[in-house]
């Protein structure tokens, strides 16, 4: 059975190695600062005792005041899983470092988040819209997204 | 060299016009020739059309389906329905197409297969011309079909079509050689290139005397005809429809018909060169010929229903590294045997059969070993049986 590493355990581990990287933690997840994210991920991926080699899922949640980018990490070797989160304040340009350099699997998922929620990932090799088309306005999965009234035309098609 | 005089259709028409109606001789000769051409070409295209239906039906049955069965009894009129549908379809010429070549390609495709008919004997005495270079003539004609594919692919102005036609040309260049080599063996055996002489020479069918030749002919012919497993020019899953992508309406219909007619032609060739043409017991010669041709067509459908497609580089490798040496072995063996027995009697022919089968049985695996044919690109297939994890 996969061990679910609780957020507080993860925070403890991170606190010992990367000071001030963790802002908050509960049973479900640990929140790290956006600045420390890449270091944290690298540590979790490379460290022998952590070895989170599989990035299960990246997603983001729009809580109106802030965005949570959620990383579900799995370690195949240890058969353990945990949840890492980054809280991004502000709705205009939430920005966080891309983890594609650590896990290549974040590539398409980060593009999807950028497309649907408008979170920018710095350092992503190919950050373009994926599910919607180029020229689409707005980010449909945001809570305040409103579809333009019909009839409408988009710059490219539709 | 004037077999027309012996042709019953010709002589009937000739006599009708010249004697009964009292027309001039040139008119009678012309009309007689026209009658022969009408019968041969239309009969041939009819068989091609029947084959389009037959293949769909047979492949359907191979795939646990029923196949066409709505139009006419057993769906036999399906081809007619398709033709009518194609006639009414809009004839589209893409904007980027080379209009002249685009329109010419279907004709270039169909014409050579009709021309090649001239030397095909459909039964005892039923042929338009008995050329003394009949085999060479057929090969020359069948080569033109690939030119049509190239024209069609180039003129369509479509990248997929162009890719398909480039493949066709590469394949033609490679497979023409083993094909000709296989026919060379037949020519050595029969001592003639005339179709009629070849049939006459087959006291034992050449498929027995020259098994390697028959195999090479079958493989090379399916490449020439773009039949699976060499159907890379049309490669539905890769190139949509290859060089046919931009064709619609009756132009597509002509291509389609030409393709299937070419298969029928190949079947006729195989029957003549390897299966002793029209000759065998009891049944009338034309019927025997048809049975042999349709046997070939059935096998062609069977192969089509079963085999996946090869990759273009594998196809070319196969031709040059495997089929070409094999055809050399074949020609060499037959040549040596012909020198030994210039005019083989019945027993000598059967000894040749035995020798050639032995050579075939030895050469195929030996050559496979040398060129590593059929071996996977990696060492062995080591999929371990599953294991418990955790």
């Amino acid at each position: 059975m996969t061990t679910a590493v609780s957020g507080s355990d993860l925070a403890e581990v991170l606190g010992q190695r990367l000071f001030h990287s963790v802002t908050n933690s509960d049973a479900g997840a640990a929140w790290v600062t956006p600045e420390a994210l890449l270091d944290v991920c690298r540590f979790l991926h490379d460290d022998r005792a952590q070895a989170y080699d599989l990035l299960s899922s990246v997603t983001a949640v729009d809580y109106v005041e802030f965005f949570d980018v959620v990383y579900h990490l799995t370690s195949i070797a240890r058969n353990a899983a945990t949840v890492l989160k980054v809280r991004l304040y502000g709705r205009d340009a939430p920005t966080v470092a891309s983890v594609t350099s650590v896990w290549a699997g974040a590539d398409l998922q980060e593009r999807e988040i950028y497309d649907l929620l408008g979170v920018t990932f710095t350092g992503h090799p190919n950050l373009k819209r994926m599910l919607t088309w180029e020229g689409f306005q707005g980010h449909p999965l945001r809570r305040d997204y409103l579809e333009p009234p019909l009839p409408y035309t988009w710059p490219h098609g539709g | 060299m004037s077999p027309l005089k012996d042709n019953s259709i010709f002589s009937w028409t000739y006599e009708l016009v010249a004697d009964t109606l009292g027309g001039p001789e040139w008119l009678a000769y012309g009309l007689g020739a026209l009658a022969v051409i009408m019968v041969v070409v239309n009969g041939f295209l009819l068989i091609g059309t029947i084959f389009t239906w037959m293949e769909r039906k047979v492949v359907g049955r191979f795939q646990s389906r029923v196949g066409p069965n709505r139009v006419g009894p057993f769906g036999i009129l399906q081809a007619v329905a398709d033709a009518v549908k194609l006639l009414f379809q809009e004839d589209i010429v893409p904007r980027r197409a080379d209009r002249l070549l685009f329109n010419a390609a279907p004709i270039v495709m169909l014409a050579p297969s009709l021309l090649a008919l001239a030397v095909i004997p459909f039964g005892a005495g039923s042929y338009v011309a008995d050329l003394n270079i009949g085999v060479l003539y057929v090969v020359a004609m069948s080569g033109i079909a690939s030119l049509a594919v190239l024209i069609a692919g180039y003129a369509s102005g479509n990248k997929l079509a162009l890719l398909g036609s480039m493949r066709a040309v590469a394949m033609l260049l490679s497979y023409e050689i083993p094909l000709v080599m296989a026919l060379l063996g037949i020519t050595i055996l029969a001592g003639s290139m005339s179709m009629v002489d070849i049939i006459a020479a087959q006291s034992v069918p050449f498929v027995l005397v020259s098994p390697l030749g028959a195999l090479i002919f079958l493989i090379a012919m399916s490449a020439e005809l773009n039949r699976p497993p060499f159907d890379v020019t049309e490669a539905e899953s890769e190139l949509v429809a290859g060089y046919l992508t931009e064709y619609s309406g009756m132009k597509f219909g002509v291509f389609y018909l030409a393709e299937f007619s070419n298969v029928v032609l190949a079947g006729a060739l195989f029957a003549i060169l390897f299966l002793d043409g029209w000759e065998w017991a009891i049944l009338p010669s034309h019927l025997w010929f048809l049975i042999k041709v349709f046997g070939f067509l059935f096998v062609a459908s069977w192969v089509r229903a079963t085999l996946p497609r090869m990759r273009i580089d594998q196809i070319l490798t196969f031709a040059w590294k495997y089929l070409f040496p094999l055809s050399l072995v074949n020609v060499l063996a037959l040549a040596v045997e012909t020198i030994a027995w210039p005019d083989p009697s019945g027993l000598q022919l059967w000894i040749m059969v035995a020798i050639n089968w032995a050579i075939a049985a030895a050469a195929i695996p030996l050559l496979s070993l040398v060129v590593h044919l059929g071996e996977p690109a990696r060492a062995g297939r080591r999929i371990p049986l599953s294991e418990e994890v955790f």
Partner: protein
Amino acid sequence: MYGIGILKGLMVTAKNLVRKPVTIQYPEERVPQASRFRGQEFVWYVDRCTGCASCAKFCPLGIIRIETDPNGGNEQDGGTYRVDVFDIDQGRCMYCGMCVEACPYDALHMGSNFEAAQYRRQDLVINVEVLKAREKHPSTWYRPQLEREKFDPFEGESKEWQDAGREKPFWHPQRPEMLPDEGDTRPTADGEYK
């Protein structure tokens, strides 16, 4: 190697050549359907419906429109809501059956048809009149009582509303024909148990 695999493949296709084809010639013959098949021709019993609109609420696509009118008389005396409008837009329906699952009185059932093609989209909307007039061949989807009695929606007869529910309907003074069964422990009109 050396073409043996290819020959094996050819044998497999040859074996299938002589097998019976599995094609079903559709308009003439049909695939046997399961009795739970979720299809068109919703079966709706006006006598069972209270107009609660649960079906409309639970429809994931919101394609059911219900308008009710409480003028069937005094509710205390058994006057029910009259369903004026009951539109199901089959053109957008995905036949998930949530409406049937949500119906607390077993008034709505799935049908078993799958061929209700129309030339215009608006013809696909079935209204209350159509629903009332339809033959009642309910699918047994989410209707264990029909399944228990092995009801066949394809062969069986039209189902009366009294027999369609999970329970026998209550006896009601305005409907004297509905006498409670022997041994029925539910209250009678006087509110007493038998």
